[in-house]
């Protein structure tokens, strides 16, 4: 009797869980999977006829493709390295602060820029980057940038975009990692202290390994966003009157293919290439970070 009762409860619970995830699943299928499959279909066809790798060959041979790959790769490299390093350090520092008020205040301050919508925060950066109006113009001058055109010259752009992205996105991750640090059991920390581990030792040997999954999670999510670089170069392009090219990133190139050359097959091919590359890199972080390992 009791047994049948508990199995029927489990069954109805399982049924309820399907209902709860169904909303997300339906939306995921409609707006995530279906467009991806459609893009995959478009990328191997031309006006409905199967053409194999033709579209891929065409976009890869496009003179804008190579530079765009390089731009995005450099940006992602600078950004991910900077993000992981600074976010982890800042989260550890904030967590280590003894006084609660300061710690809460700092978390809030870090988070604020992230609350600004992407495009508007880039607008803000336009002023920061222009040596004639920038509040930190002395920094720009010290780095040898006398004019806006020099600040946004191709060599500087990956770093510029990485700084913008860090400024807008890092705060949220600091809060997330702070939460992860709270999950490190107090007994473990205490045991470490008793064993004579200092702050640094604790951070390196206890906290970092226990944050590993969260760091991997951050890397995967940021990688997906980073390879899709679009808003920042788009707005900088308009503001710099075209000095930052409209075909700077891969996503911009896909956009031009679709909406300037009306070549949706080529555009889809770029999108699929992006998907494959970011999936591959994500797998690296998932495996290295042990994201799906169960304790």
């Amino acid at each position, binding site marked *: 009797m009791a047994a049948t009762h508990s199995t029927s409860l489990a069954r109805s619970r399982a049924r309820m869980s399907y209902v709860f995830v169904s909303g997300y699943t339906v939306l995921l299928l409609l707006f995530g999977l279906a467009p991806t499959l459609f893009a995959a279909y478009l990328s191997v066809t031309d006006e409905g006829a199967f053409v194999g790798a033709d579209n891929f060959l*065409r976009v890869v041979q496009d003179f804008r493709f190579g530079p765009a790959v390089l731009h995005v790769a450099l940006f992602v490299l600078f950004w991910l390295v900077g993000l992981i390093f600074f976010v982890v350090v800042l989260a550890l520092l904030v967590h280590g602060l003894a006084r609660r008020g300061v710690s809460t205040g700092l978390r809030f301050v870090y988070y604020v820029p992230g609350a600004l919508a992407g495009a508007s925060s880039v607008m803000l950066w336009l002023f920061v980057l222009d040596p004639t109006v920038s509040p930190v113009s002395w920094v720009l001058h010290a780095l040898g940038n006398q*004019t806006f055109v020099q600040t946004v010259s191709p060599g500087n752009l990956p770093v510029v975009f990485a700084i913008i992205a860090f400024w807008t996105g890092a705060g949220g991750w600091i809060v997330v990692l702070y939460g992860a640090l709270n999950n490190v059991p107090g007994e473990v920390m205490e045991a470490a202290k008793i064993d004579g581990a200092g702050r640094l030792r604790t951070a390196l040997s206890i906290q970092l390994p226990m944050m590993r999954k969260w760091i991997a999670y951050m890397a995967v999510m940021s990688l997906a966003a980073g390879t899709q670089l679009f808003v920042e170069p788009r707005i900088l392009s308009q503001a710099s009157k*075209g000095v930052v090219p409209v075909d700077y990133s891969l996503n911009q190139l896909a956009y031009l293919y*679709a*909406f300037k*050359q009306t*070549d949706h097959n080529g555009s889809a091919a770029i999108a699929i290439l992006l998907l494959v590359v970011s999936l591959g890199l994500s797998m690296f972080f998932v495996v290295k970070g042990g994201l799906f390992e169960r304790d």
Partner: protein
Amino acid sequence: MSLRTRLSGRPRSGMLTLAAVVVAPALVLTACGGGTSGAGADSPYGFETVEQEEGSPLTVWVDASRQPAVDAFTEAHPDIPVTVETYDGGANGSGTFQTKITAFDQAGSGWPDVVFSTQNNDAAWAAVGQTPFAAPLDQGYFDQEFLDGFTPGALDPTTVDGTVYGLRNDLASVVTWYDQSLFDEFGYDVPTTWEEYEELGERVAEEHPGYIVGSVGDAWTPEVYFWGARAPMNTVTGTDGFSADLTDPAAVRMAEILDTLIDSGSVVQDSVFDAEFVQKYTGKVLMLPGPVWFSGALFQNADSLDAPEGTIAAGLPLAWEGEEAVTGNVGGGTWFISRHSANLEAARTFLEFVTSSEEYQVDLAPGLPAYQAAGEKWLENQAASGYFAGDFAADVATASAQVWDGWGYPRFSQEAVFAKTVTPQLAAGKDLVDLLPEWQTALENEAQVNGYTVE
């Protein structure tokens, strides 16, 4: 199928549509014994129209500078409701107009009725494709008499395969702006050739440092200096042929002149629209080759250089020694009408107003109107106001007739290529002469992805 063949197939399908449009009304007429709606394929305008809705509001896209045109129209025609949206006007080859329209093409709705673009070459794009945006204007939509009222040659950039797809707002030929009072003060003669221009630039840099004779900081530098130098770097043959030759002596010589003057400091790399340009060079612009619309945009503008009355003159275009002068052209906006407009009649009234009416083009327009009658009055007004030194009306009129016809209007933007390829490297201190090969490659690449055969 390669991109190129697909694109080159377009005009053919355009011709088919045209043929269908011409034949279809005849068929409909014989079938029904006379249509009445004036819509659909039965339109008298020479293209297939959508169902017309009298009194439906006009959606108009303009750049910020054209807002007064819309305001003047709403004042003169309060009965026609206008929804105005400002956008960047496609400035510096941003391509905003094209990408937005293509998005609407995909959606199948949402097109504006009237669009103002700062880019002359937009017609080459708006007239073609599977769903061309621009309505043909000379197939019965506008009276030929009205179209003939434009300054000869003014509609050339918007004419594709013999059909007019857009109306020019203003003429934008390049003139040689100079400050007469400074020339008097320094005791210099106004140059008439590029060689003299180079000499003067070097001399002023030495004798009066801080004063300038030009700027290469804007994306239209190729149109100002290289078009005027007859550099064959934007040659369009037929609908799909393109060539650029930056090894041509005219291109190389012009690059050398600019290098010399940039080094000396009399040609600067600031954009004339930067706040810093105004700050640094107000009262210090000895010469500034540039389009006619610099008049209202820079000199006679309290927010810009704000030159005192009687100092600035619009000199004739410069020539190579021993050659006839030609000149370039920087934009001169174009008005397009959408084929998808549901109120073509109101759109026509709007276009007639903004291109030819005295209320806007003579009284308010910052640049020389492309509509001849308005243009003459505008020049008269400018001359009568006594603001400009020298023979302003005559020199501007002469320059307008000297635009070199060897410079084409391809589907991509020369300005965008210059801005991304040359501008940052000049800022990094490289010489223009050394950048010519890279610039040529960039132009050829751009032409290729836009469906041109590079010759």
